[in-house]
């Protein structure tokens, strides 16, 4: 269905090709997962299928890509619109019209299908994707998972033979991600659609894949093959594969169920051990730094209940109503020094609102919030920054200057820190970033590190991170984990709003689950996340009923 015939893509301003001599043929009706580290050319490869590379993006394509027999060199993207449906990373950038029903019909209108057919297919798509209740809703009012489903539906109605998805679940909470993946799998099973999908969060998708296309590094030859075989050599691996390799299982299990079948001996071996508390373990990839972290923490892991330290921030029956919607409802929380808290819950549950309230962006409707002894919404920003720092969901919101060096200078000036403080921090996090780089040219992970360095320049004891691992590959995530552990060891309190259960399992001491603006669960990580199927990490599912959360815990115990 899709064939890549020695495809090499070079962008105009770069010396090296992004893709080099990619050879692959994806048969009809397969769900093919495209994996590889950041910058390996995954998005470019997806772009060549829809013809957007090179017709829209520029650059040079050598070789040949054919989709359903059509050569993308001679067919423009709009002429491939009836065979390829593409959904990019940000569904909001994809919408042309303003309501769900019109959006589903838009592609068919462009193709000139007869009105009767359009009407029937829209109804089918509404049922297939479970959107009937939302059909007249303005798209802007939908949640992330709903928008992603509308985006998939909108490319589905012209009945394309190939569906190209770029990170369809990265921004979604675990249940919404399963919803989207269930739809994708249904398309493959029932309609025989060929799906090519790139995704960083392998633990969510790898079990559904029929084939894996691996791009090991930029310019390296691509490999297409059986998921289990390729994941064994892949630089990026989901926890289930990591655990399988650690335990020496062969063939490697890809789903939790396969792993559980093989896990009996491992469970027996582990029965005599107790898992070390989370938040203090050595990460799998690194290193000396975190050993120090574990050594200096004093009271490992557990929230310091015994130490009568003053809380860094407190909320008392905090409620927030905006536009007649209760965003937060009677939230009572205490954040202590040295504590790492993961804030979880579905999209729109109030996680970001809570973080924003802690930095004074919203004034509480009722109840109290104190950060560093004063209400944040009445504190001057410069003063507040000494008590609390927030890295927003989109780190580029914090970046205004046109070079990294200027960004650092202004951060020093804003916080009254010694000149050079910020630059030193940046160098620690990103060793090889030249001063002259434009912040927008950085990768997702680098941009996050830069924003983090800017916030850390003021040394706030309370650090808030909103969805920090969106768009990060496993290597970048491991670096972030190391860094956050060091900060926690220094006595920073860290609050992460995240959908990433593996991250929460790795570093959080305490997990709070929000639903409709209220905490519905609040307790030690192991207890909260293992009690919920949606929020349990893969290792916990495999080794249940024992409470192992991460592969690194298991590794340390063996």
């Amino acid at each position: 269905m899709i064939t890549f015939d020695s495809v090499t893509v070079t962008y105009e301003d770069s010396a090296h090709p992004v893709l080099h001599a990619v050879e692959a043929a994806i048969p009809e009706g397969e769900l093919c997962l495209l994996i590889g580290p950041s910058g390996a050319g995954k998005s470019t490869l997806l772009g060549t299928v829809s013809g957007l590379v090179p017709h829209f993006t520029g650059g040079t394509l050598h070789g040949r890509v054919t989709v359903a027999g059509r050569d993308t060199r001679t067919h423009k993207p709009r002429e491939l619109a009836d065979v390829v449906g593409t959904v990019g990373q940000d569904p909001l950038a994809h919408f042309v019209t303003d309501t769900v029903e019109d959006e589903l019909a838009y592609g068919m209108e462009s193709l000139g299908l007869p009105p009767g057919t359009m009407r029937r297919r829209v109804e089918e798509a509404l049922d297939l994707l479970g959107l009937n209740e939302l059909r007249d809703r303005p798209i802007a009012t939908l949640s992330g998972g709903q928008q992603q489903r509308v985006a998939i539906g909108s490319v589905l109605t012209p009945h394309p033979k190939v569906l190209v998805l770029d990170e369809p679940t990265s921004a979604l909470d675990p249940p919404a991600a399963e919803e989207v993946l269930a739809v994708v799998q249904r398309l493959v099973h029932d309609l025989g659609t060929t799906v090519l999908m790139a995704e960083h969060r392998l633990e969510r998708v790898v079990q559904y894949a029929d084939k894996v296309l691996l791009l090991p590094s930029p310019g390296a030859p691509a490999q297409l093959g059986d998921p289990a075989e390729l994941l064994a050599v892949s630089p990026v691996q989901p926890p289930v594969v990591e655990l399988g390799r650690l335990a020496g299982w062969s063939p490697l299990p890809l789903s939790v169920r396969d792993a559980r079948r093989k896990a009996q001996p491992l469970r027996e071996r582990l029965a005599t051990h107790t898992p070390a508390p989370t938040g203090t373990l050595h990460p799998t990839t690194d290193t000396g730094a975190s050993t120090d972290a574990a050594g200096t923490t004093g009271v490992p892991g557990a929230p310091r209940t015994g130490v009568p330290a003053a809380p860094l921030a407190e909320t008392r029956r905090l409620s927030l109503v905006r536009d007649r919607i209760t965003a937060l409802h009677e939230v009572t929380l205490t954040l202590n020094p040295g504590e790492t808290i993961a804030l979880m819950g579905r999209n729109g549950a109030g996680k970001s609102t809570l973080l924003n309230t802690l930095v004074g962006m919203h004034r509480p409707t009722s109840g109290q919030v104190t950060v560093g002894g004063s209400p944040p919404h009445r504190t001057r920003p410069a003063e507040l920054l000494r008590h609390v720092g927030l890295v927003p969901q989109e780190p580029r919101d914090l970046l205004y200057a046109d070079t990294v060096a200027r960004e650092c200078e202004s951060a020093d000036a804003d916080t009254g820190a010694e000149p050079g403080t910020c630059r030193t921090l940046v160098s620690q996090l990103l060793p090889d970033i030249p001063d002259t780089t434009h912040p927008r040219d950085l990768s997702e992970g680098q941009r996050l590190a830069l924003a983090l360095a800017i916030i850390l320049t003021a040394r706030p004891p309370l650090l808030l991170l909103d969805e920090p691992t969106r768009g990060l590959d496993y290597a970048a995530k491991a670096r972030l984990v190391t860094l956050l552990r060091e900060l926690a060891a220094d006595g920073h309190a860290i609050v992460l709003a995240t959908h990433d259960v593996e991250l929460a399992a790795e570093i959080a001491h305490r997990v709070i689950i929000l639903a409709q603006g209220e905490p519905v669960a609040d307790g030690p990580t192991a207890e909260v996340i293992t009690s919920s199927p949606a929020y349990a990490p893969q290792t916990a599912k495999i080794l249940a009923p024992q409470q192992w959360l991460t592969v690194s815990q298991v590794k340390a115990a063996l």
Partner: protein
Amino acid sequence: MHRSTPRAPLTNGAPPETRALLKERAPLSPRALLTRRAPLSTRSGALHPGAWWLWALGLATAASRTTNPLLLALLIAVAGYVVAVRRTDAPWARSYGAFLKLGLLVLAIRLVFAFFLGSPIPGTHVLADLPEVPLPDWAKGVRIGGRVTAEGMLFALYDGLKLATLLICVGAANALANPARLLKSLPGALYEAGVAVVVAMTFAPNLVADVRRLRAARRLRGRADRGLRGLLQVGLPVLEGALERSVALAAAMDARGYGRTAHVPPAVRHTTTALTLGGLLGVCAGTYGLLAAEGAGFGLPVLLAGLVLALGGLWLGGKRAARTRYRPDRWGARAWLVSASGAAVAAFMINAAGNYPAALHPPAIPLNPPPFPLWPAAATLLGLLPAFVAPAPPAPPTGTAPSPGTAPFPGGAGSAARRGAADVRQKSGAVRQEPGEEPAPRPGASRSAHGEASRHTPWKKRKPSPWRHTPLHRAQQDRGEPHDQEPTQ
């Protein structure tokens, strides 16, 4: 569809006819009696947006024919009532408030100008005597300061009120008609221009949201998040973001087939060009003929011929677009009634302007209360017709609990999510071990918030999902993956 939840399962899937029947059989409350005549607005039954515009333009025409403040106030009240009972809670419907404020602003500006720059109306009731700024000879018609008379201010008030009424009528059309749907009714040849306008319209709100977000983010860097300086400093990042978004949108539109053209024989293409160009030339010549003193004889026929040619060109040009239209709005009987009511108000007012000139243009001198002309006022009330014949908007969500209509906690966001959270919630009593606090004695009894949660969230009100019987679901059940809950709607 913004419907209160209890009614939704009853009517939602039903075709409009059944829905109407269900509605008819419902017990009649006073409110139901009021709304009974007009059906609830659905996609197929929605009023053509053009009808709303014609109605509003009719009211605006009427407003332009009078300066009587009582009639103008009546027109504003008529437009306001219709908006109040017939607008939806869609984003564009909120623009009415903005138009009201704009109208007030115009009125205020008009009064301030009249106060400080004087008024040509002579008067005897002096309100204030400002010092007059001496101006050179060449600025003879302009006055700054000087005597301010009550008559002058009254004249300015009448005049400003007329302008404000015009604006409010336009605002009413804006709030009642979906602008995107109006543009969808354009002829095929103009379609691409229409899409550009629609994209631009969704773009502006995004831009405003970006500015707000970035200004708020300044706080995170310890800078003031208010004030003009903050606004200026986020300008560049906002523009960069807007540019990136438009490029992404262009890519998405291209990949979805925007701009595909059908093959058109060269002969037709040339004919289209000739017709359009010739038509436009004809329109120009005809207009010139009408306006110039000596060409009155040939002006009108040439203008009409030009219009016909241009329309023919548009029609032929539409052949080139391979597009079809999904559920176009139909111009039905209700649309006729709505637009006719606007036209009637305009016609009566134009007629009245001839018959009762004094009542429709009450003089500012002498200072008297304006008369209330009965017949024109009665005619104005005809504009209320849409409040009874136009399809009613679906019932707005009630109560403060987030509902599917407005909430970021959407009903459709997956009952799996609810169930997941429900599991956690059930166990949370046991799990909740806050530092220094005894575990709750009994799961679920630890805090009244749990009761609250179950009241806000219809955990148990789940419809059986159509997914339940899919092959996919069975496959997953067979594989028995523990974390794979049933895929949800």
